[in-house]
């Protein structure tokens, strides 16, 4: 499979997914390393989680022919597998290596994004060598014989080992399914091959035989499910031989191994043929089968000997042929006979059991799942209901059909809850039953594929599975559009329900309907706004890795505590705080936390702690970064600031807060030396800029000797503004409420006019200059008389001014929209908002409003 443009979307998806996976891996690694540090036991689920993520990534990469990524992932996976199987003692070094591997992968991903391939982006031989060496080190002492452990010794993760013995028509297979099948098949064969090779080198062990057997078996199951009968048959032969070897019936020798390797090659050829759109036919499968059969211990493999003890055994071996298998539980012998016969006749493989208990045994012992379960409800011993709940909890992808004469509704309801796929009434119609079975099998298969693909990380513990958030990726612009439309809907709603034509009418029914509409639109608006909100956990989790790396680099043990990761913030805000957080946490680690020696000296624990917390308070989100280090040194800051000319030499009037804020000035750094981490005095400056861009501010609580706490205040969303709606002539303006100090209608006595025409108003003891908005914006006001209009006192950086408008309409909370880019930026206007009646109002930018004064009217110093 090679790349072309059509694949770029797939590739993009892969990059995004892999990034997510890497993001998920990092915290897991940190967790493991922490466990190792503390000497506590590493949770095997965590290791499995990491393994699965690597494995998934490898699978997808293999799919897309990204061989470099595959190779790195593969080695990482191998190493991990050794770790989780307990073959290697867990060492911190392993995980550092694996973290490095993650970085390499992440770099490769960048390359893929820009170049569409992972080749020639960077040299991965270094990391591969390290990984291989590590693996070799682990393998060496454990294996008795020669060196060169093949990297392909990874047993497949257990979730793949449940054979999928489904079958369906070739036409039903989408290319994706085939690709998936081929990919998985190649993996399985590769692994089996690796094991075979190791056996040929004399490293034969029970385990590798088991693995080969399982791999062949899984592959066979897959072939059966895909209806590739030739490959299936061939694999079946392989399986039989391996079984013979296991049982000691077949002596293992070079000859057999070579034959098996050849067969595996043939199978691979078949797989490649499939990828090219062929039917997976093999060249000379018959001759191979003959050869293999001659090697077989007995003429028939007894892959399913476990179930031979069950009442109906004669058809067991047929399972191998990939029939659709039905587990049929029925206590009535006549029905059992009859239905079994019907099913067998119609190409189903039927395992009939008399009781639920025996059926469960069958299920447990079968090496592969059955496709569908058909069960009676009234059974002796364990009831059908109990049986079903047992089955659905253990084998959740197995569809269940009940067959009963009972039509109790409550029972049906209970069964529905148990996710029973279908119900058939006794006496059953043959066609109906067959149809139902067929549907159920397709359904079960789909479910199985889903659970295999979407959550290849499907953990066995259901509690964890339920925590997995389901989400989709949506273009942000689409979301914005949605929010726009919802806004419009609300406007349209009020245009209809408050339509002037309705005035004075008694419309009870209409009022009720309108009220209902109002409730719905309100909820819709809330949800539309909530859609943009995402939890900060993504950004926070990245910091774990950062602290880990920094702590290694500067040789200070530091632990990062996260709190309130679930706090949700506007997407844009989350993106904007990522960089500042990196800088601030680096600073805390590098400058804030003392060296271990210093810490011990002052009686602090050796390990430094940084707290990263988020919480929502009213309409703000607080992000808190707190370290237990030495705190900010006021004297040093002042000294540095003076040296850098940030403040005057004799500036003694600064408050503590003001002094602390100096660290955010560009070019400020107290570090005596510039390290590769920090010290250039750029970091905090960037922090401040970014935070200001999202209209946030930073508060510092300095506690010399005990640590320092930075609190970032950020508005919950950038999308809304609270403002006062005012009118000048026919034009409406929204003035941000934060800039308004007060508003008043002046009396004539308060007004003074300077000879140059500049008007002043005396408010309490101060004289404030008056600016007429209609003059500034060249409008025709309702009146020109100051005493007939309203003066709005605005708090500007340069001092308060009065803005003259016609009248105040009301307060608004509204969504900010930008003025069209076509018009560029208009002085004095920061954007616009849409009013309840659909009109557009301009949002005044108080700070820049005076800049649009005609030059001959420039503001004269108000002093």
């Amino acid at each position, binding site marked *: 499979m090679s790349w072309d443009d059509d694949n770029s979307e797939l590739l993009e998806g892969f990059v995004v997914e892999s990034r997510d996976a890497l993001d998920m891996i990092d915290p897991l690694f940190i967790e493991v390393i922490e466990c190792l540090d503390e000497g506590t036991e590493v949770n095997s689920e965590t290791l499995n989680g990491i393994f699965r993520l690597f494995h998934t990534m490898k699978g997808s990469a293999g799919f897309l022919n990204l061989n470099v990524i595959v190779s790195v992932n593969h080695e990482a996976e191998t190493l991990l597998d050794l770790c989780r199987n307990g073959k290697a003692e867990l060492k911190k070094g392993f995980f550092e290596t694996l973290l490095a591997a993650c970085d390499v992968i992440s770099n490769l991903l960048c390359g893929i994004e820009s170049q569409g391939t992972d080749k020639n982006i960077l040299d991965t031989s270094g990391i591969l060598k390290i990984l291989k060496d590590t693996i070799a080190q682990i393998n060496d002492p454990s294996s008795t014989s020669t060196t060169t452990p093949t990297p392909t010794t990874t047993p497949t993760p257990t979730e793949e080992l449940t054979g999928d013995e489904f079958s369906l028509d070739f036409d039903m297979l989408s290319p994706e399914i085939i690709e998936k099948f081929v990919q998985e098949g190649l993996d399985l064969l590769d692994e089996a091959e690796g094991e075979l090779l190791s056996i040929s080198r004399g490293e034969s062990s029970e385990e590798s035989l088991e693995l080969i057997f399982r791999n062949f078996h899984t592959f066979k199951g897959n072939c059966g499910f895909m209806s590739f009968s030739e490959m299936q048959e061939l694999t079946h032969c392989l399986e039989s031989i391996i079984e013979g070897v296991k049982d000691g019936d077949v002596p293992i020798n070079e000859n057999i191994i070579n034959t098996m390797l050849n067969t595996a090659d043939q199978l691979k050829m078949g797989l490649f043929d499939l990828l090219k759109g062929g039917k997976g036919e093999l060249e000379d499968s018959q001759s191979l089968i003959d050869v293999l059969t001659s090697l077989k211990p007995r003429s028939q493999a007894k892959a399913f000997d476990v179930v031979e003890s069950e009442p109906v055994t004669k058809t067991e071996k047929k399972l191998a042929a990939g029939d659709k298998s039905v587990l049929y539980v029925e206590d009535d012998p006549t029905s059992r006979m009859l239905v079994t016969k019907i099913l067998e006749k119609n190409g189903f493989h039927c395992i009939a059991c008399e009781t639920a208990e025996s059926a469960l045994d069958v299920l447990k012992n079968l090496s592969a799942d059955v496709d569908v379960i058909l069960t009676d409800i009234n059974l002796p011993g364990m009831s059908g209901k109990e049986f079903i709940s047992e089955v659905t909890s253990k084998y959740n992808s197995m569809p269940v059909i009940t067959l009963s004469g009972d039509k109790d509704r409550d029972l049906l309801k209970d069964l529905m809850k148990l996710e029973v796929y279908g119900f058939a009434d006794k006496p059953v119609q043959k066609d109906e039953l067959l149809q139902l079975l067929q549907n159920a099998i397709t359904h079960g298969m789909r479910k199985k594929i889903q659970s295999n693909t979407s959550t290849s990380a499907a953990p066995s513990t259901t509690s964890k599975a339920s925590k997995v958030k389901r989400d989709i990726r949506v273009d942000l612009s689409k979301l914005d559009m949605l929010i*726009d*439309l919802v*806004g*419009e809907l609300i406007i349209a709603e009020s245009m209809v329900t408050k339509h002037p034509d309705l005035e004075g009418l008694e419309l009870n029914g209409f009022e009720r309907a309108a009220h209902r509409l109002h409730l719905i639109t309100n909820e819709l608006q809330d949800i539309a706004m909530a859609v943009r909100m995402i939890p900060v956990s993504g950004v926070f989790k990245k910091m774990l890795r950062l602290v880990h790396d920094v702590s290694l680099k500067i040789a200070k043990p530091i632990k990062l505590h996260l709190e309130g990761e679930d706090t949700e913030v506007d997407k844009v805000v989350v993106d904007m705080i990522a960089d500042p957080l990196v800088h601030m946490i680096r600073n805390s680690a590098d400058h804030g936390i003392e060296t271990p020696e210093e810490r011990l000296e002052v009686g602090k624990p050796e390990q430094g702690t940084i707290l990263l917390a988020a919480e929502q308070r009213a309409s703000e989100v607080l992000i808190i970064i707190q370290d237990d280090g030495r705190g900010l040194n006021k004297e040093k800051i002042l000294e540095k600031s003076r040296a850098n000319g940030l403040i005057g030499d004799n500036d003694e009037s600064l408050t503590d807060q003001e002094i602390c804020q100096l660290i955010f000035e560009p070019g400020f750094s107290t570090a005596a030396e510039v390290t590769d981490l920090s010290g250039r005095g750029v970091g905090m400056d960037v922090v401040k800029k970014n935070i200001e861009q999202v209209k946030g501010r930073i508060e510092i609580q300095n506690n010399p000797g005990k640590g320092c706490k930075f609190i970032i205040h950020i508005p919950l969303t950038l999308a809304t503004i609270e403002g006062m709606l005012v009118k000048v002539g026919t*034009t*409406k303006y929204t003035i941000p409420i934060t800039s308004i100090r007060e508003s008043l209608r002046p009396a004539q006595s308060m007004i003074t006019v300077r000879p140059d025409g500049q008007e002043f108003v005396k408010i309490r003891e101060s004289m404030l200059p008056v600016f007429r908005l209609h003059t*500034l*914006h*060249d*409008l025709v006001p309702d009146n020109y008389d100051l005493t007939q209009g309203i003066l709005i006192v605005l708090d500007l950086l340069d001092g308060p001014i009065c803005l003259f408008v016609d009248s105040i309409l009301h307060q608004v909370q509204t969504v900010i*929209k*930008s*003025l*069209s*880019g*076509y*018009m*560029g930026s*208009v*002085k*004095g*206007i920061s954007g*616009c908002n*849409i009013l309840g009646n*659909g*009109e*557009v*109002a*301009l949002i005044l930018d108080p700070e820049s409003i005076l800049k*649009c004064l005609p030059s001959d009217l420039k503001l004269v110093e108000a002093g």
Partner: protein
Amino acid sequence: MSKATEHVEDEDTLKNKYLTFHIGDEDYGISIGYVTEIIGILKVTEVPQTPDYIKGVINLRGKVIPVMDIRLRFGMAARDYDERTCVIVVNHKENVVGLVVDTVSEVLDIPEESIEGSPQFSSNLSNDFVSGMGKVEEQIKMIIDVNSLLFRDSEILESVKASSEN
């Protein structure tokens, strides 16, 4: 319906389709490729510090877009808006702008060969914005050059233009 529109409609003949509209006594055409929709005139909010032909902004279903009065852009006398006044919403280089015209008439197929270059005389400012003269059954439709309509000679828009070219 004119003869022209009876031709088989090919996907790629979109470029030969023109939305025609009147301003004063003259007919104009604008390539249909630019046009996203046609709406009746809405309440326009004036925006300060803009050229007179930018009438202000309107609320197009939650999207705020600027509107340009073509009459003023062409240097013609302003005319009061009535119920026949239309806004043609065009999208050019990601700029969505509403064009106020007297009335909109129909979509015509004007083949390339029946469009002649605009005669060169510069007595009229509006000539700048006309890229050709389309002949449809003895009638002349002046083809609007959307790019120059939106961007030419507009001091206030110079900066935007520059940044969009970068």
